[in-house]
Structures are given as C-alpha cells and as structure tokens.
C-alpha cells in the first residue's frame, strides 16, 4: 500500500478499521457487487434505473448539495480523489498530492490527458474555477461549501499543478474532495447561467446528461471519449452501457413492481419488506451499501430536563429494547450499531457495553435520579412533573420501518416509566421543532465522508444555530475536552494521532450517553440478474455503472 504521495495511511491496520472493511466487503459480496460470473462483458443496451429519492432540483451537485444529486451526478461528474473498498483514499482526477509541513498548503497534480465532454481540457485553472464556483455565494452551495470552508485561495502553478492555501490545517481535506458535491465540472460550462448548468452539467465521467423530462426521467448517454476510470475499475475505455434512463418513481411498491415486471433494472431506496420479498427471487439481487458519516442514532437533548441528568440519559438507553425491534421490523436487513460513526468509516469506534437493554438497571438509575414515584398511568413523576420526552420524527427522513421502531421504543420505555411523545412531522415543521428546542429525543441522519462528521455533530460550535435556526449538534453537547479533541483531530497531519484523537472523542460521546446508536444509514439497491458489474462507490455509496453491463 504505497502511493507516491503522502497518504493518510491508517485504514485496515486498526481493529475498528478491519471490522469496518470486513462489513463493507461483506456488504458488497452479499449483494454480488462487481460480479462478473466469469462471463465476458458485452457492450450496448440501455439500463433503466428507478430512484425513489426526490427528483433533484438541479443536476449540478455544487448547487445545494443533497443525496439525490449525489446519486445521479456520480454518473457524469468525477471528483479529485476516490476511496478503495478498504476505505483508503486513492487518486482519481488528481494523480498525486503533497501537504506542507504546517498543513496550510496543499499541492495537487492533475491526471494528464483528461477532457470534459465539451472538449475543454482538465487543467489546474479548471479545478480552480470549480473551487471558486462552490465558494461563490451565488451558487448557493451548502454541502460542498462546508466541505471546502478551510480553503482560502487556489493558484495554478502550471497546467497540471494546483496549489491550495488553507486558513487552518484540515485533516479531512482529501475525504472532502472525494465527495460528489465537489466533483469537477467544465469551467466553460460553469460560465453558463445557473439554469442552463443545472439542466445539463458537463463533467469528465463515463456518461453525459442528454435530456431531462421533469418528473419523468433524465437520459444519460455514454461518453465515447472516456479515459479516466479510478484504479479500482475492472476495465478501461468507454462504459459498456449505451445509455441510462434515470426514472423517478416515488412509490416504493410501484418501484418494486416495475423491477419485478422487468420494466426497470435497478431500484434504490428498497424498503426492508421488499428486500425480504426479493430474497426468494432468482431474478432480483440485493446490494447493501450503508452511507458513510454518522450512524443513524437517537440524539438525547442534554440542554434541558430531564436529559440534563446523565442518570436519566442512561436510564432511557437501558430501558428501550433496540435489538428485538430492529431485527423484527427490518427483517434482518439492518445490523445494530454501537458507534457514532457508520461502519464504513475505518475510524469508527464501537462499544456495545454502554447500550445493553436492562430494565432493572433503568429502574435503579431513575430511582437514584429522584424519579421514584409513579402516577396512576404508570409514568414516573418528580415534584409533580411527569417524566415526558418530546420526540419529533420527520416523515421525510425516517422510513416507515423506522417509525414503527420508534413506536416500539415508546412501548418499552413506558415500562420503565418514560412517557415518550412521538410526533410525526413534515420536514419544515420538524426543523421548526428543533429550532425552538422543543425536543428531548431526535433522529437526524448525516452523510459525509470521514470522521470529521464528529466535529459537526458534537463540537459546541455546532450548537449555535445558523440564521435558519438549524444546528447540527442536536444532543447539544458542550464539552471543552471533546471540543479540544475534535479540533486537534481535524488539524493533525499525523494519521496515528488522528485515529487516537477520534477514538477518544467517540469514547466520550458513547460513555456520556448523548446518543443511542441504532444502525448504519440504510442504503439498499435491488437489481435484476441480467445486470452485471454494478457496485456502490466506497465514498458516499452511490451506484457505479461504469463497469456494469446487460446480458440479454
């Protein structure tokens, strides 16, 4: 594992990393990712992909920056770096890079001979234009903007060499550059109006955007001049598929029916019941690709009663029966997590000892915390106040199985004397409840490549609301020790130190009972057996169709 550049060589050498890599590989092989079954790939054909995610408002992922945009733009835009399936950063449009001793400047050398599909060459000026595009307020980038926040300026040293100057060292820079939200587009195309660029961004990828019929589909066609696959690809040259029809089918049952009928080849957002139903089928295969970043977890709001008391937090965590609920409601499609990070993150640290279901311990802890009386309904009371937990749930972000799981939590927590008030809300109302600090429990997914997501979720800076009222540290943890660890981890250029710091930070989060980890952010694809060679990118788990082909 030696690349001609300084690489954050952590990865699979650590225990946590090894576990994560095994899980990732298991996920891929179980789904039959990049299976060729020994058959010779054939060129041609149109692959129909049906997405259940919202239709993007703009096909340029610099603008805004959400997961639906990442899904589709991974087919026509390529970032500077990627990850291999062991979770290590590998070159892509950048062939090598160097970090200065103080960590404040980075030099990237770009891959030679790459052109955008409009004929513009990929050079240092092009990448500079992209960074400026993401940072321009008029672009209204959110995800990409946050990822590149530490970049102060970019300078083209020569055709293929770009120097970046940072405001402070950034150990997450390469991970940030691997994300589709900062993928590189043709500078000529970026000069067009935002409307035009949103409709058909121009990249270096294996496919190009040809047409977009709103609410129906986007047509992607093969880039015949394609030369820039990353090292993990199984072939070179243009893609096998002639084209991809990217359809929008919001209803889960319709999407699955269309897959069964052979009307579409691949579907995303497969729900636990459909995955289970597909298990018995010979024609439908499963690809399990958990998203990176944070695990799905309940966040316990420590800023107000009753969760300002650590005893009550632990009591709640001990009182809910997570494992039984997850295995019955997700039909075994989701593995339990005991970490704040996704299992695809090599630096994820797990501790199951903090999260065992133990009703007796819950009772003892509540007694110790002074909640020893119960009212006529069986709920605990203290000084005339009932032990009530407000739990706003976003119906956009929690799938039906997860909503049912929360109902089970409500039932088991009641036995210990907690009154959990589940409140199903649309996204805007849910944001509203969070902004008004009107919650004790909440579940909010967060996708990002790398452990720096911990800084976003648990640094006290993230308790300060943005003008919109939103803040990411929903447990409202304010710990100087944790802040210090997270800041140092984000600035160190020593991989071993980084790993050690993130492990300590995760221990504090887990032992403080700020969160109740549930499972990875679920991301399941189902595809028909005539599709071969499909896999999920190890970066943000979007599907990769470059090596995919259709056997007739």
């Amino acid at each position, binding site marked *: 594992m030696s690349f001609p550049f300084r690489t954050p060589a952590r990865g699979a050498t650590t225990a946590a990393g090894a576990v994560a890599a095994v899980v990732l590989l298991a996920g891929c092989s179980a789904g039959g990712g990049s299976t060729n079954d020994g058959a010779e790939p054939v060129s041609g054909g149109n692959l129909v992909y049906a997405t259940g995610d919202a239709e993007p*408002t703009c096909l340029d992922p610099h603008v805004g920056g959400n997961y*639906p945009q990442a899904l589709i733009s991974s087919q026509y835009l390529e970032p500077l770096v990627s990850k291999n399936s062991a979770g290590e950063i590998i070159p892509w449009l950048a062939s090598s890079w160097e970090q200065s001793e103080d960590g404040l400047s980075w030099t990237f050398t770009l891959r030679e001979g790459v052109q955008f599909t409009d004929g513009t060459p990929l050079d240092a000026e092009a990448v500079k234009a992209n960074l400026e595009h993401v940072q321009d307020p008029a672009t209204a980038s*959110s*995800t990409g903007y946050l990822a590149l926040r530490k970049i102060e300026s970019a300078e083209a040293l020569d055709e293929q060499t770009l120097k970046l100057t940072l405001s402070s060292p950034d150990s997450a820079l390469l991970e940030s550059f691997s994300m589709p939200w900062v993928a590189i587009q043709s500078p000529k195309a970026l000069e067009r109006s935002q409307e035009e660029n949103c409709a058909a961004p121009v990249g270096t990828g294996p496919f190009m955007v040809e047409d977009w019929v*709103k609410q129906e589909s986007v047509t992607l066609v093969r880039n015949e001049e394609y030369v820039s696959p990353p090292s993990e690809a199984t072939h070179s040259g243009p893609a096998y598929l002639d084209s991809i029809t990217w359809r929008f089918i*919001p209803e889960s049952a*319709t999407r699955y*029916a269309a897959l069964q009928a052979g009307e579409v080849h691949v579907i995303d957002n497969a729900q636990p019941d459909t995955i289970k139903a597909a298990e018995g089928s010979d024609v439908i295969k499963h690809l399990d690709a958990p998203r990176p970043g944070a695990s799905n977890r309940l966040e316990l709001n420590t800023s107000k009663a009753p969760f300002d008391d650590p005893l009550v937090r632990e009591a709640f965590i001990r009182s809910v029966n997570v494992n039984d609920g997850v295995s019955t409601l997700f039909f075994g499609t989701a593995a339990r997590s005991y970490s704040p990070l996704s299992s695809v993150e090599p630096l994820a640290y797990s501790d199951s000892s903090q999260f065992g279901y133990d009703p007796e311990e819950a009772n003892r802890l509540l007694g110790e915390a002074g909640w020893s009386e119960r009212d006529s309904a069986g709920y605990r009371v203290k000084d005339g106040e009932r032990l009530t937990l407000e739990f706003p749930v976003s119906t956009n972000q929690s799938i039906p199985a997860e909503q049912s799981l929360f109902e089970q939590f409500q039932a088991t927590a009641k036995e210990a004397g907690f009154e959990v008030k589940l409140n199903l809300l649309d996204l805007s*109302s849910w944001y509203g409840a969070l902004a008004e600090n009107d919650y004790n429990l909440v579940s909010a997914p967060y*996708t990002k490549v790398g452990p720096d997501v911990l800084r976003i979720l648990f640094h006290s800076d993230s308790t300060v609301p943005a003008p919109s009222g939103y803040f990411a540290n929903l447990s409202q943890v304010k710990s100087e020790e944790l802040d210090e660890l997270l800041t140092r981890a984000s600035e160190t250029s020593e991989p071993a130190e980084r790993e050690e710091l993130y492990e300590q930070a995760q221990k504090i989060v887990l032992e403080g009972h700020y969160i109740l980890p549930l499972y990875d952010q679920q991301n399941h694809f189902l595809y028909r057996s005539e599709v071969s060679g499909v896999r999920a990118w190890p970066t943000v788990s979007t599907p990769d169709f470059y090596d995919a082909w259709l056997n007739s």
Partner: protein
Amino acid sequence: MVEQLKTFRWVLAKVLGAVFVLWAVATLIFFGIRLIPGDPAEAILGGPGSQASPEALEQVRRDYGLDQPLPVQYAAQLGRLLQGDLGDSYSLRMPVAELIADQLPGTLLLSALSLLVAWLLALGLAGWSTLNGRAAAVVASGLEIAAAAVPHFWLASVLILLFSNSLGWLPPVSTGSADGLVMPVITLALPLAGFLGQVMRESMLGAMSSPFALSARARGEGESGVLFRHALRHAALPGIALSGWAFGNLLSGTVVVESIFARPGLGRTLLNAVTLRDIPLVTGVALVSALAYVLVMAASDAAERVADPRLRTA
C-alpha cells in the same frame, strides 16, 4: 332580447365569481403556506440532507425577496399575478407557467378519460338495474356503495398487485404507452362511478314510473325504448350537475394516482411543491386547478340549461 340579457347576466355573474375565487385561492395559499413552520430558503437549497450555509441562505432570501415584510411580498405577488406572471418555481427552477403547460395535458387526459369511464359505468349499471327488477337494484346499489367507499391509494395498490405483480398484464408505471393509462383511469373512475351511479339510478327509476313513461308504454313503446328515448335524459341531468363536482374530485384524486403510478402531471407537481414549500408553484397549480374547476362548473351549468329547457325560462 330578454333571453340574451339573461344569458349576459349569467355570464357576467360567472366571470365575477371566477375572479373572486381566484383571488381567494391566491390569498389563502399565500398566507396558509406560511403558517407551516420552517424556512422556504432551506427548501430552495435542496431540503432534506443538505445543510445550507448561512451565506447561501442569505443569498437565497435576497434573490427570492423572502427578506421583505409579508405585506410587501403579498402585494408583489398579487401584482405579478395580475400581469399574468406566475413567477418561477423554487424547486424546479423553471417558470411556473411553463411547468404547468407541460404537466396540464397529461392530467387533463387522465381526468377526462376517468370521467368518461365513470359515466359509462354508472349509466350502464343504472340501465341494467332499472331493466332487471328489484334484485338487480339491490345488487347495483351494493356495488355503487362499495365502489364509492374505496380509497384511491388502496385501489391503486390492489390493482398493481393483481395486474402487474401477479398477472403481469399491465405495466405498474404509467408512462410511455397507452396500456399504462388503464390502471390509473380505473382507480379514478371506479369510486366516482359509485357516486354518479347512485344518483343516476334514482332519477332513472323515478323517470321510468313517471306519467310520460306510462304514456310512452301506452303508445306501445317497449321497456328499453322507454329507457333510451325518455328516461335516459332524466338520468343524465343529475349526472351533468355532478360532473363539475366530479371533476374537482378527479383533480384531487390525481395527486394520489399520479404519485403511485409514477405518472407526470399536475397532481404530482402539487404534492412535490407542497412538501418543498415551493410557494409560486403551489399557487400556480392551485390557481389553474381553481380556474379549471370554475370553467367546468360553468360548462356543466350550461349543459344542464341545454339538457333541461325548464332552466332557461326559470
């Protein structure tokens, strides 16, 4: 001359009513959508999953005039609407008028076909039960009540399970081919046929036992002759009167049906627009729907005046 004056007053009343309805719809939506907590600027920036930066939100608020006081925004909105400008969609970044023009034909086709099928089903059932005695009337009444009670989403799911998953006869996704229209049309038409059938059968039965039917029989007309030549017109009257209402019902039904069958159209546009708090698009779709409803009501009024001469002199 008196006749013309009456018609003119009838038209004038309809036009004024329509203007009032449109203004009320625009106003209700403008204020109603703001009662939902949250920030449309965040929705503009991609909504779920994207963490918008303060700078980006600020920029968007300025660009879309969301930083202005509410009365100013309302006045600006009405001013634009008066000039016939529906504005640009937040979420799809296209002129609302263009979006609606793209999506309207599909929804109109779906609604019109469903109305036609519902009419045929209802008339067929009413005719059959009228000609076949009391037992048939009981059966027909049961079918109508059952059909009218079925929710769209349930019917659509059952149809997909049956005709796509099990039998494999029809595509679950309704685009591209004519057979894709079959299930959406049945889903919308069946419950509606239940409602229409109930009123049509009542008035057909009434007409069959009325004096003019008796005299037709006395002239030697057979039962089916009485039905088709005389009673049908009577049965159609409440049907026509209800068609305006039925059209409104269909428009709301398309929200569900277009989403389930992944069919592009105004209903699906509206659903997405509401979830994303896309105020210009919600307003645009609602105005067009209200206008369509007003026009269809006027048409069904006019059709009633044609079918029933008594209304013209009254």
